[in-house]
């Protein structure tokens, strides 16, 4: 029989294609985090460049074969670029990219796949987290700060490592409490705010007065718990101070460690549109602004000593004077 993707129009090879394709990782659209950020970039690019597009969610417990199928489907239909959100797409993209040399594949959060038509969009989360650590160290009065990670996977370990280093480099005597919510493959730790809430309460009870979370949706629980006690919380991924669902707590959101997935998606689309598609590893780091600290909370920008320390740390990282650990 025929395969699902044999496109009768034959338009697949045209350079302009049908637009952008976005394939999500577990969680999919609506996770208020990673996937949603990718979606934001996707939407913006669609609008700015007047493109069409398709975004597709995964099913539960799927294997690589399903991802390969999804990517092939999208590439065959003529989408370009085809973006896989999350490291789970590494192997599938490696396989599919070979079959579609003219299509650009974006791979977020992974740099293990090397190919001419694959753009590895990776982030130095540890660098941004380092700044968060510096800010926390400067903001704490009790000399105890907390870190709540959603699921104990290497990606989140990077957040932790940078944060801890940032705190310790600023003031060795500060104690960092670390708490993960679940272990993989149980991804509840990214989606259960109640767990985040209880973990944050535990850290607050242990005297922490600044808590940094890297827990996706579960982080909402962290924010709620910390705000309830008028302590500082540091958000993650996007500027959580500006998030509507969190408006109630925004006063207590000191800052957020932003990870510009949206921008990365946008950049990739733009490069394809410009006819110079990104290839190989593109790092989104402090220097490029791919990661950083948001400063929409006036209370945050008003802390001068803190701001200076953060600025200094940023310069040192950019200049290479400070080498931030990734926890691997």
């Amino acid at each position, binding site marked *: 029989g025929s395969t699902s993707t044999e496109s009768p129009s034959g338009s697949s090879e045209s350079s302009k294609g049908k637009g952008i394709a976005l394939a999500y990782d577990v969680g999919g659209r*609506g996770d208020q985090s990673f996937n949603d950020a990718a979606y934001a970039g996707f939407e913006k690019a669609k609008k700015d460049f007047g493109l069409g597009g398709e975004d597709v969610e995964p099913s539960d417990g799927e294997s690589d074969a399903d991802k390969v199928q999804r990517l092939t489907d999208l590439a065959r239909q003529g989408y370009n670029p085809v973006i896989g959100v999350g490291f789970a797409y590494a192997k599938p993209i490696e396989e599919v990219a070979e079959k579609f040399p003219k299509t650009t594949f974006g791979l977020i959060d992974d740099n293990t796949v090397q190919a001419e038509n694959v753009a590895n969009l990776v982030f130095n989360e540890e660098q941004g987290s380092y700044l968060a650590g510096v800010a926390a160290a400067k903001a704490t009065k009790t000399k105890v700060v907390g870190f709540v990670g959603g699921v104990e996977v290497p990606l989140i370990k990077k957040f932790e490592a940078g944060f801890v280093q940032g705190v310790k480099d600023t003031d060795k005597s500060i104690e960092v409490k670390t708490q993960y919510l679940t272990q993989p493959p149980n991804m509840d730790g990214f989606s259960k705010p109640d767990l985040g809430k*209880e973990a944050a309460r535990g850290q607050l009870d242990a005297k922490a007065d600044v808590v940094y979370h890297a827990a996706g949706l579960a982080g909402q629980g962290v924010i709620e718990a910390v705000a309830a006690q008028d302590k500082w919380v540091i958000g993650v991924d996007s500027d959580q101070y500006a998030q509507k669902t969190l408006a109630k707590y925004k006063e207590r959101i000191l800052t957020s460690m932003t990870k510009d997935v949206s921008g990365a998606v946008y950049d990739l689309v733009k490069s394809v549109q410009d006819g110079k598609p990104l290839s190989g590893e593109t790092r989104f780091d402090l220097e490029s602004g791919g990661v950083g600290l948001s400063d929409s909370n006036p209370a945050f920008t008003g802390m001068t000593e803190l701001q200076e320390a953060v600025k200094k740390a940023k310069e040192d990282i950019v200049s290479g004077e400070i080498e931030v650990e990734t926890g691997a």
Partner: protein
Amino acid sequence: MSTALAKPRPAAQQPRKTARRRLTLAEWMLVIAGFLVLVSAVRLITGAHGITSVGQTSTALRLAVPIGLAGLGGLWAERAGVINIGLEGMLILGTWFGAWAGVQWGPWTGVVMGIVGGALGGLLHAIATVTFGVNHIVSGVAINILAVGATRYLSSFTFEHMEGGTSKQSPPIESIGQITVPGVSDALATLNAKHWFVVSDVAGLLGGLVTNLSLLTIVAVAMIPLSRWVLWNTGFGLRLRSCGENPTAAESLGVNVYKYKYIAVMISGGFAGMGGAFLAEVASNIYLEGQTGGRGYIGLAAMIFGNWMPGGLALGAGLFGYTDSLNLRGGGQNVHALLLLLAILLVLAAAWAVYRKKYLTGAVSAVTAAVLFVWYASVDEVPSQFVSAAPYVATLLVLAMSAQRLRMPKANGKSYRKGEGK
């Protein structure tokens, strides 16, 4: 659920005066006091003051509530003879309906609708198992699948179009309100912070029960004695239980067994639904896909653990909530302290087994105790991966030590047809 192997029959001609030896109140107090002293000692030795802190207890309570409610759901169904493995699905329906109504009409309406949602799941289970006589487990599994699909589907018509909601998440729900017993709470917290022997531990345990109590938590906790009262002290409860013990006998006395099974399974779903509403409204303030995370199954386990009794299941849910809270609140050190506690308990168990001349059990306990002690002595913290397994390991261990004393309702899980009894 379990296939009972041949059980000795009582010799007919020897009526036994004391049917079941129960611990007296005084003995219970003694056991509890002994346990407290032990825990306190372990706390002082290890310096893991977190194990009996106010926050720990209060977190444990919050984590225990949905499990306990699911367990109560299981209890009501199984007391009427229907195994309810669909609790997970009913919990899911509870989260969705609770949030859906909660967002629009306020949290208490949400609770009511959560209960209704769960009860709908119960109704479906009752139709399948009571009317059609389908295997109870099969029907439960089907309900779990259906609930997942239905709530996802419904979300994309409702929450997705709401301000602040997505297809996987509801907008925030207004808080249901919480209370802290003024004065008492602070006093207990102060006492707890002194780290005194036993006194601080008791203060911590009590403190957790009067601090930051959600109103729904109070309602939920009240359901335990209420269930006990209804099931064991009213005619309604007696009829319901008789359906789980011997439905044919109940039928022969004019009890409408189908009706009571229906009621019981719907109440069962209602409790699970309330648990779901609790998850969506108190534990977090939004509905989220996958929010229940297997708590229905854990609730079922708590109920079996509690020997199909409300008090027992509360204990089971409490144990689970407590170990889970240890895990979420600086787990490594706390669980490390627990290793020592467990080792000591096992030494005691070994001694008891040897006293009862059960040498094999004694030896196994002793060896396990030794292993735990070595582990305790050789590390400062338990790896987080193992900490997260603590609630499950604890449940398994306690069950392994107590399971043989359990007794489920005799006709539980059996299909019943009117007029076909022998």
